[in-house]
């Protein structure tokens, strides 16, 4: 016991000495810690309004507790919206994982087969370009190209694929393909950077050995390149799984309209409409908290998987 107290004291004085010795370093860290405390931890504290009947006049502390009332309101009274926004949030992610995740890997593998370095570099530079275009502009271009008399309809018509133009942006059935497809278009090149870098780290001797064993380029790609970048693929896949409940607010918000809410409305846009536009703060916070909790669960699961398969973990 005495020794414990002693070592505790010793720990404290060591900490004090550390604080004193590295005074300047801690001083530099102060604004950073303050930033995280204020802008990340105070909102976590503010999440309690999900369990209160918050009115701005009474403030967070003064508002009365209502327990799970707001969650009941969401899950029981608005159950139609609950399943719609959860389904939409998950489906947009699932489609993005199925189609969007492999795309940059395939792109990197194909690009790696281009031996002419000028051509290769040109392709790369062009492929990153869409990443730098803002969401507002991307959606502006989408709305223009996919409108009833837009470029896409014109092309499809002149090729004889369509006889009547489709109004893509007002039909719920088209929202997901356009959302996911445009996302792939925008991020394909950017996301391939990391795979290309992983490919360039593969030991060239492996290719020589494969060549001696009689492997052609297809076999080299399948038996050398792909296994070589597999760890990168696994890590990125796990990271991707960890953000399954996050669908970017901006693009959905700019792209959707009441006619496509059926397939387009996601949790974050619903929180925005209910919480900020209708100023039902507690309700919005409850829906947001539900989303954060599910997302946190996915992150923990993803991290466990990562630990198991890659010996790399986020914590």
């Amino acid at each position, binding site marked *: 016991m005495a020794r414990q107290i002693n070592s505790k004291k010793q720990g404290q004085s*060591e900490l004090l000495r*550390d*604080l004193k010795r*590295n005074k*300047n370093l801690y001083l*530099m*860290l102060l*604004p*950073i*810690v303050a*930033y995280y405390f204020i*802008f*990340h931890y105070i*909102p*976590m*504290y*503010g*999440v309690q*309004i999900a369990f209160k009947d918050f009115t701005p006049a009474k403030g967070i502390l003064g508002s009365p507790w209502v327990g799970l009332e707001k969650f009941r309101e969401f899950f029981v009274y608005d159950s139609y919206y609950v399943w719609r926004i959860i389904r939409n949030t998950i489906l947009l992610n699932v489609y993005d994982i199925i189609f969007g995740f492999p795309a940059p890997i395939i792109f990197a593998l*194909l*690009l790696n*087969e281009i031996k002419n370095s000028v*051509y290769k570099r040109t*392709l790369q*530079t*062009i492929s990153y*370009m869409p990443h*730098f*275009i*803002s*969401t*507002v*502009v991307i*959606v*502006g*271009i989408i*709305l223009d190209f996919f409108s009833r008399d837009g*470029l896409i309809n*014109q*092309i499809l018509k*002149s090729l004889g694929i369509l006889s009547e133009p489709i109004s893509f942006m007002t039909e719920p059935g088209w929202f997901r393909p356009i959302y996911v497809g445009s996302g792939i*278009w925008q991020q*394909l090149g950017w996301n391939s*950077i*990391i795979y290309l870098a992983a490919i360039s780290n593969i030991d060239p001797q492996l290719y*020589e050995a494969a060549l001696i064993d009689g492997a*052609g380029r297809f076999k080299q790609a399948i038996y050398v390149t792909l296994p070589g970048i597999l760890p990168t693929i696994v890590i990125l896949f796990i990271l991707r799984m960890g953000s399954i409940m996050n669908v970017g*607010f*901006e693009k959905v918000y*700019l792209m959707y309209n009441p006619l496509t809410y059926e397939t387009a409305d996601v949790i974050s846009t619903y*929180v*925005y409409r209910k*919480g*900020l536009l209708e100023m039902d703060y507690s309700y919005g*916070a409850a829906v947001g*908290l539900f*989303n954060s909790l599910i*997302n*946190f669960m996915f992150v923990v699961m993803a991290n466990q998987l990562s630990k198991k398969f890659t010996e790399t973990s*986020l914590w």
Partner: protein
Amino acid sequence: MKIKKGVSEIIFDIFNYIFLGLLCFTFLYPMLYVLFASFSNPIKLMAYRGPLLKPLDFSVEAYKLLLSYPMIWIGYRNTIIYVVLGTAINILLTTMGGYVLSRRNLKLKNPIMFFIAFTMYFSGGMIPTYLLVQSLGMIDTIWAMIIPGAISTTNLIIMRTGFHSVPDSLEESARIDGAGDWTILFRIMIPLAMPMIAVMILFYAVGHWNAFFNAIIYLRSRDLYPLQLVLREILIMNSTENMTTGISDASDRFAITELIKYAAIIVATVPILCIYPFLQKYFVKGVMIGAIKE
């Protein structure tokens, strides 16, 4: 060692060169289409069907109308303020934080790192954050565009990794010469980490240039609107009446409205697209380091 290519490999090569060329063309072409369309004659463009390969009857009418619309200039001015001020604060905090957290001998380093990294996995959400910003009196001020996003955790981790790679012996010899922490940071670490900082400047500046979420949530007065909100009005809400009041014919007005949209896209996007090829070699490095978390 050279081995003769088989026929199937040659076919694959041809296919691959053409396929990737076409694919990259689809990345480029939408921007080219917008560029050509923006310099076209509005009436001709309306009648035209199919992809454009050059402007139809070169005309700068759309740009004249667009640039005579005061909101464009207000948006540009505000965006430049947000980019410059915001990026400066981002870089200052990210380099200081990255440097300190890369030092090995700090007792509180790991707890603080956990304190920071935890926010990547759990957050209070949109509403509590909004209420906080409101109670700080930042609603409808330029600070709402700058302070709530003063640090990006991913970028902080990238910076920390970057500083890790600076050899310890450099710091030690500076200490022997009597340098303190501030001198080491500004005179030794920052110059050495300059390529890394260039990446950070690009990431943050592009982020501010394209920022939309904070603006839509926190800003009310049009005087503070960044370019992206002005663009949203023009591109998505179709409010170009102010620019086309001088045109009496309805179909002319419709035609020029479409053209103004194209011009607006070009005006808002070209500055970014012009600088990024020059920074490409740096940000590839940044993406790589960002992907490795210790």
